[in-house]
């Protein structure tokens, strides 16, 4: 047996730095924001940031200035993930407004429909599909090329999945006529047609172009996939349609904050899906330990233990909703528990989801500890293996 080695990677987005947010919102950038840019440049070992600092201090920002700030924001995101020690990186989606909005603003066939309450005084924007969706051309290729030219790490490009786009949109096209009093079959058919059109005409051409540009790993993000359990099968069908014919070495699927029991057995029909990246830490105890009783958040791993043909597991070990910085030893125990249950060859390590709601300081500490904890898990498993011979 070769030494156990786990791959570490991010999932999705990081927060955007205040100097970027304010620049794009047209709000004044304060000296404290500039100081933050300088502090992080030093911490991340970024060189050449003088031009950024000079730009941030300008009284007025033009298009070229905003483009430069956008580029630097992506470089900071990339550097943060590299410095934390991750094996697989991206830019923390610094150039993307938000995972739903990013697609809607690049796709044809959608129109904004106003503000909806998420909860209390929190809101989100929602669009409606008004005609068959399409794109004029791929919209994430430049983002990928920019990063590929600036890192020697492996890149994993994230794409918002078709199910999430459909589920978070209104339908004024597919189910528009005859909706009142329609049968369940009619409603399901309208939904499926919408879903497959987004997969085939929006997600796939964009992802295919990124792979053609050199990316060998595409991650489809579907946080909403198990929202309606009866629709998981068409969600799987849409994943397959999204990646069909794309010669990426790896295709993976990220799902979070869901009842994973609803995914089985349907996810066994995912075409050539390398792994499911899932959130677990959010449900887990902070206590150390590698027994099942110590790791209540990881109970869903038994679904994978019972299904050897299931994709691998991208093991969420960081709770993205709290500032609690998981000690390396806690990460270690989570990884060891999963590896002992499924076999280390079926496990890789990542946060539960994107860390965009955490400050960069917290996100960095969490990720650095994730990497350290993963190394500790490797040592523990290799030591145990050596001891058994």
């Amino acid at each position, binding site marked *: 047996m070769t030494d156990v080695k786990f791959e570490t990677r991010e999932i999705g987005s990081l927060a955007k730095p205040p100097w970027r947010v304010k620049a794009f919102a047209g709000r004044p950038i304060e000296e404290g924001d500039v100081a933050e840019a300088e502090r992080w440049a030093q911490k991340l070992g970024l060189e050449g940031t003088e031009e950024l600092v000079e730009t941030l201090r300008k009284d007025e920002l033009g298009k070229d200035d905003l483009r430069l700030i956008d580029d630097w924001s992506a470089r900071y995101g990339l550097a943060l993930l590299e410095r934390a020690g991750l094996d697989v990186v991206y830019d923390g989606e610094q150039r993307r407004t938000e995972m739903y909005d990013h697609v809607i603003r690049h796709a044809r066939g959608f129109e904004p429909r106003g503000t909806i*309450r998420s909860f209390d005084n929190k809101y989100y924007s929602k669009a409606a599909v008004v005609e068959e969706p399409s794109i004029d051309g791929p919209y994430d290729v430049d983002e990928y090329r920019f990063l590929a030219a600036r890192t020697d790490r492996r890149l994993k490009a994230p794409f918002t999945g078709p199910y999430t786009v459909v589920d978070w949109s209104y339908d004024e096209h597919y189910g528009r006529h005859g909706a009142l009093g329609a049968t369940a079959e009619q409603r399901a058919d309208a939904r499926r047609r919408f879903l497959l059109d987004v997969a085939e005409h929006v997600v796939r051409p964009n992802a295919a172009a990124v792979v053609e540009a050199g990316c060998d790993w595409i991650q489809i993000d579907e946080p909403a996939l198990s929202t309606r359990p009866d629709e998981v099968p068409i969600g799987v069908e849409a994943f397959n349609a999204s990646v069909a014919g794309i010669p990426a070495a790896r295709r993976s699927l990220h799902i979070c904050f869901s009842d994973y029991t609803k995914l089985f057995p349907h996810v066994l029909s995912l075409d050539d899906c390398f792994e499911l990246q899932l959130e677990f830490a959010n449900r887990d105890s902070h206590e150390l330990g590698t027994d099942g009783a110590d790791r209540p958040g990881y109970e869903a791993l038994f679904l994978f233990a019972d299904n050897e043909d299931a994709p691998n597991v991208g093991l969420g070990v960081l709770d993205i909703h709290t500032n609690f910085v998981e000690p390396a030893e806690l990460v270690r125990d989570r990884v060891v528990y999963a590896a002992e249950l499924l076999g280390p060859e079926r496990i890789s390590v990542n946060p539960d989801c994107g860390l965009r709601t955490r400050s960069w300081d917290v996100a960095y500490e969490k990720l650095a500890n994730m990497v350290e904890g993963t190394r500790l898990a490797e040592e523990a498993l290799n030591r145990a293996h050596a001891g058994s011979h």
Partner: protein
Amino acid sequence: MQAFAPGIYPRSEALVQATRDLDRGRTSAEAVDEQVQRDLDELVRVQQEAGLDLLADGMLRWQDLFRPLLEGSDGLEPGPLTRFLDTNSFYRAPTSISGEPRLREPLDERFVAPLPGARIVTLPSPYALALGTGIRAKVLATAVLKPQLDALDADLVVLGEPFLAREGAAGLPELREALDALAGGPPLALQVTFGDAGELLRNGLAELSVEGIGVDFYATHAADVPQGLDKLLLAGVVDARSSALEDPQEIAEFVERLGVERVALVPNGDLQYVSERIARQKLARLGAAKTRRAKETAA
């Protein structure tokens, strides 16, 4: 034929901004109050213009269907943030804490706003309020909802029931027992929102001790409505989860096909799942559908 709009109405863009600003410390609670009043005045005007028969206050201060009752009761509290059905919106799930559940005092005018005319009030169904608390629905009906109902001056109280269609007909006996405990107050209607009521209708939903039954016809097939229904049917014919605007003529023809004698046209759930601009247009179409149907009946 009647038309009205139970449930939580969306906030205007101005109120959205005001509440966001309040959370960020950029405005005062008084300024938000003033905007709530402007939203309410506008909602009343829109309902009157649409020709709706009973006015609603839109529950503009309710953070979700349960919150003011939970915060105003002993033995209950707002629990974890929970996804509302299969939407991308969330509510604080009712949670039991130590002590007997008891509404300390009826909700004041912040939560049941005065209106210039005949009105409806929306409250949670006792089954929905009790779900997940470990407390029987009848207990919460008696200790929380009944004192609230007794304090209301309403022409109809609509009990919103978003969960029973998904939980299934096995929950009907518990609901029946709880509704029996609410008798003697203002007229009640139980509205099954955002769900297929077919199974419930086949298992006695229409025999519950309420004046009216609400059905979502964007999830329920028309054929599931029992022949000879003798209750007021709150027909959910405007889809509160779709931005598409309904055709009043299509609604009028659909209602005719239902063949039910007493019908009130309503949205199939809270209109807060569309923006205020769209909700306003939906209310106008609700009223237009009623007018169209009335003309056809007269002809």
